[in-house]
């Protein structure tokens, strides 16, 4: 962690140090991150895994350039004669009066409000649990750890029944409200806040006369940024990919997220008189993962430093 080591560094260490650090022998170079040891086996394995994860993506990109007929007649991993990517994209956005755009906006709404809200709650809760003592803290810990283990899919049906009683099914709230809770995010923020915010810093802020709110916003929050981004990414991906919850909550296609909408298009092919639009399903899928890839690339550096938090004891 860069931030905590920066504050740790100037302090004189009084702890007994080992007399002599075992130095690597001269001819052999140390395995520093800059020069890792090469292993053929490891390289091959990594290559296989890379290929394994890239081939479906490659298939998706290539298939998105094909027409409906092209999909049926050509080899999956190479291009067909007609290059129809732009036509497919235009048709995806105009098919059925442009309902795809509506699904995209719905998904964005669920992600911004749901995942954003979940991140906010996780940051607030994690900070409080990490830095304040109160009765029942251990019980909260147990509940959070327990909640991490319960898959959201298993809770979907009880949630549906509850929301049905409240009259919230078939409204966007049915997707947003359950998305606001992220036990794993809370746990991550809790652990992160414990490591990332030195108690001394908070004490210093308090001695300087800062209120609790000011301490949180001006001292703690900047230090929590990498963790916040990590949690934001996790919740964004979870909400973006959410399928089962919207499936049972929503009937009105106007409120569908992309996952349900694409599924509906896919199922059209299995309907008497329905139109098979596999090319649009494929193109739509590609368009659906683009924002996620963009989010990962943009937030990557925060995310990486966030994951490593607390992994090295200083």
């Amino acid at each position, binding site marked *: 962690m860069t931030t905590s080591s920066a504050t740790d560094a100037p302090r004189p260490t009084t702890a007994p140090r080992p007399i002599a650090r075992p130095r690597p022998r001269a001819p052999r170079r140390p395995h520093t991150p800059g020069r890792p040891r090469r292993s053929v086996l490891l390289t091959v394995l990594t290559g296989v895994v890379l290929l394994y994860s890239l081939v479906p993506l490659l298939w998706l990109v290539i298939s998105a350039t094909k027409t409906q007929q092209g999909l049926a007649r050509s080899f999956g991993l190479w291009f067909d004669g007609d290059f129809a990517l732009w036509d497919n994209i235009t048709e995806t956005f105009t098919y059925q009066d442009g309902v795809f755009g509506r699904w995209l906006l719905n998904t964005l709404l669920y992600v911004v409000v749901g995942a954003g809200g979940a991140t906010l709650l996780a940051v607030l809760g994690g900070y409080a649990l990490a830095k304040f003592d109160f009765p029942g803290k251990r019980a909260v810990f147990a509940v959070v750890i327990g909640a991490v283990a319960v898959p959201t899919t298993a809770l979907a049906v009880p949630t549906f029944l509850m929301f049905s009683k409240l009259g919230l099914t078939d409204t966007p709230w049915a997707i947003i409200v359950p998305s606001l809770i992220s036990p794993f995010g809370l746990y991550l923020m809790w652990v992160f806040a414990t490591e990332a915010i030195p108690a001394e810093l908070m004490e210093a802020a308090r001695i300087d006369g800062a209120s609790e709110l000011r301490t949180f916003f001006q001292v703690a929050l900047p230090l929590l940024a990498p963790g916040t981004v990590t949690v934001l990414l996790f919740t964004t991906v979870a909400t973006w990919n959410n399928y089962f919850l919207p499936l049972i909550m929503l009937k009105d296609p106007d409120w569908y997220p992309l996952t349900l909408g694409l599924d509906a298009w896919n199922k059209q092919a299995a309907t008497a008189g329905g139109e*098979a639009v596999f090319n649009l399903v494929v193109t739509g899928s590609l368009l659906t993962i683009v924002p996620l890839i963009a989010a990962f690339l943009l937030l990557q550096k925060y995310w990486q430093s966030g994951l490593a938090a607390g992994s090295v004891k200083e």
Partner: protein
Amino acid sequence: MSKYSRRLLRGLGLVCVLALGATACGSDGDSSDQKRVDAADIRAALKEGGTVTVWAWEPTLKQVAADFEKKYPKVDIKLVNAGTNNDQYKALQNAISAKKGVPDVAQIEYYALGQYALTKSVTDLTAYGADKLAGSYSPGPWHAVRSGDGVYGLPMDSGPMALFYNKKVFDRYEIAVPTTWDEYVEAARKLHKANPKAYITSDVGDAGLTTSLLWQAGSRPYKVDGTTVGIDFTDAGAKKYAETWQKLIDEKLVSPVVGWSDDWYKGLGDGSIATLPIGAWMPANFASGVKNAAGDWRVAPLPQWTKGQSVSAENGGSSLALPALGKNKELAYAFVEYANSGAGVRTRVENGAFPATTKDLNAASFQDTAFPYFGGQKANKIFAESAKNVPADWTYLPYQVYANSIFNDTVGKAYVSDKKLADGLDAWREASAKYGSEQGFTVEK
């Protein structure tokens, strides 16, 4: 009811509408099953306007709804695709159980309608005069929407069966188009021998196809009388079916591709699936899903179990029904009648649907339609002939949706193991009977 009192009622209804607005007219929610609703009530409701929520996946309904709204500007048709067949039935059942969010109109397939009728989850439409439409539908679909004296939906489309075959493939290997199921097995052998990658059809066990073929073979496995049901797959028709289909399975003559998947569409396109015995609604799916094989396919009458006969069966097809908990019953019925019996039928036929109304089936413009996809063939003639040849006495179980859902666990085993089709059917009977008893039906042994 005498003419006089009917007129009086009509007058009263009108006064009521004028004075209070349609919804304020007391009794229309509770006991409307018994109350007669006549044309004037419906006209009044149309004038008053309102919203009708329709759960349907049938694509041609979109245009019908738009036309209807244009004709009756105060009516708003909210067309919702709540999933296809099983998905929608689940959603509908949930909504009915929760007594919340029940649509005013729901598309329900013929095989599934019985269970809604039996539980009175859908409105008996005789009160709306639907029984008078008896003569205007072909016998198969009409029989399917009736239960006892009630009419529980209006037939939307029908699926008289025909044999779709890839002429290019048949020509290349010089195979004659089969007219009987024995010839069909012969053709399957010949084709697979000539090209080991080609199969006569694809089948991994499909309850809809099996029940349709049993229907055609003269088997009547289900007997339903109120809450008493009988299940039996041992009659002569069922035997014929099981023996013939067993040959196809044993000799691996059917492709193990799952129906309606992209692989299936691919197989229909590249000739590796050479025929489809299926309902007459299939041309639209061919045109949109198998574009690259345009011109290769033709339509022939369904192969017969006995040479020289011309017996057919229905495969698929659905009705529009009014869920009992729906609102705006008059408006809902007006829409259903428009879509399935009135002007909407023409619109739907023009958009590729296959009608259930005899008038439209027999219309010259319908029968003379040349299908460019089928090389200019006037395929509707074959379909319309098939519709006439459907025996009307077929009955599904009152819980056929459940029975079909366990088809692959029972009969499906015959496709993937040494188990015989006949044993599979017996296992299906047993499981269906057990479920029936658990649900409170009297199951005859």
